[in-house]
């Protein structure tokens, strides 16, 4: 081995050897060369001194003990803690609160359609409320944006309450909703309304139409009488 054999110079080998990281075969070469070369022997000695000094220097940087009052000071700070988190349960408090809030929200969403929305099965392609030009409630607007979801909720509510569904003809949903709201709010007496509807239905009667038989038309004259009718009148009578 010569001083210039290693590409990084002998000092690299010396440093690695001093740090105990040089390959044993290379270290043997270095030591053999250092035995013959004063400069490389000096470089190796210097590298070992530096390596030892590095360790001592860093050790001196971190040498020390906390003051004797460390534990006392820490205990007083712990005692001043507002809420010591010693109990396992406390760590779960926000999670439990979140779950309860979510459950309450879900329950509210499931309950709301049963209370305010009449049961209907219309598959309204266009919004009936918009067609009627009526003022719609937020729940109605919600039903416009998500008709399927609302439909399933209404069905679920009907099943839960065991009440029959009300079929609303297409295009009359808005009117039915307004009727329902009026009755539910007490603005209209539902029983009186039903009674009056039955009375009106009783008055309505379908009768046959009495129509006179057609007469044979007279032959058309060449000149039309100025005062006479062109056709014979047909008498139609009937009462709805």
């Amino acid at each position, binding site marked *: 081995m010569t001083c210039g054999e290693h590409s990084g110079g002998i000092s690299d080998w010396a440093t690695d050897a001093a740090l105990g990281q040089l390959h044993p075969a290379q270290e043997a070469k270095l030591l053999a060369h250092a035995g013959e070369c004063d400069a490389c022997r000096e470089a190796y000695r210097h590298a070992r001194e530096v390596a030892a000094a590095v360790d001592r220097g860093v050790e001196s940087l971190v040498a020390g003990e906390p*003051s004797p009052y460390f534990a006392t000071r820490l205990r007083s700070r712990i005692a001043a803690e507002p809420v010591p988190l010693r*109990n396992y349960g406390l760590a779960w408090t926000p999670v439990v609160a979140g779950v309860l809030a979510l459950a309450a929200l879900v329950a509210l969403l499931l309950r709301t359609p049963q209370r305010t929305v009449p049961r209907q099965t219309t598959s309204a392609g266009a919004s009936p409320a918009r067609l009627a030009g009526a003022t719609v409630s937020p729940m109605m607007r919600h039903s416009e944006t998500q008709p399927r979801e609302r439909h399933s909720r209404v069905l679920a509510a009907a099943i839960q309450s065991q009440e029959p569904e009300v079929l609303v003809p297409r295009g009359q949903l808005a009117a039915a909703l307004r009727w329902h709201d009026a009755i539910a709010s007490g603005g209209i007496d539902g029983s009186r309304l039903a009674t009056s509807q039955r009375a009106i239905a009783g008055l309505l009667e379908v009768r046959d139409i009495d129509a006179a038989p057609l007469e044979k038309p007279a032959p058309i004259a060449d000149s039309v009488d100025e005062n006479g009718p062109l056709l014979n009148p047909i008498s139609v009578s009937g009462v709805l």
Partner: protein
Amino acid sequence: MDALAASLSGSAVSLDLALEREFEQRLADCPTLAYRVALGVLRNFAEAEDVAQEAMLRAYRNFHRLRDRERFRAWLVRTAWRLALDRIRAAGRRERRERAAIPDGHAPPFESLAASREFERRVAQALEALPEKLRIVMVLAAIEGYNTREVAALLEIPEGTVKSRLFLARKQLAKALQ
């Protein structure tokens, strides 16, 4: 009802007492570790103690998750290290030190330098210039009693990684001090 409340209260008290006892054990053997880690960054006794206090206080707040001794020590080392770095960054001491460390034109002989305060200052400066991953390994290895296996456990990294980082750190420090 009162009996139930008393029972629950009693179990909570016993749980607290058990945790308190365990924390007292940590308080007996861990503050020095946190203090030395902080000292390796800050090089100031009072500030290192403040950081160790803060790290131990945070450990106390999270102690229900850190009851395992090894996990506690690893967590404490990382926390003290980060707190010390935050403190030194916030104060801008790094820049002040770098300005103060401008070489004066001539280097004294190494033998006389190694025995002086100046050498300690240069070691600290070289240590500070190391990448963080190398620096923390070097500091932990310099703390008395920690071998590469223990450093690996504290940092939760493989022992081989610790060895290679330690070698790189020493080599860079040696080059900086030559």
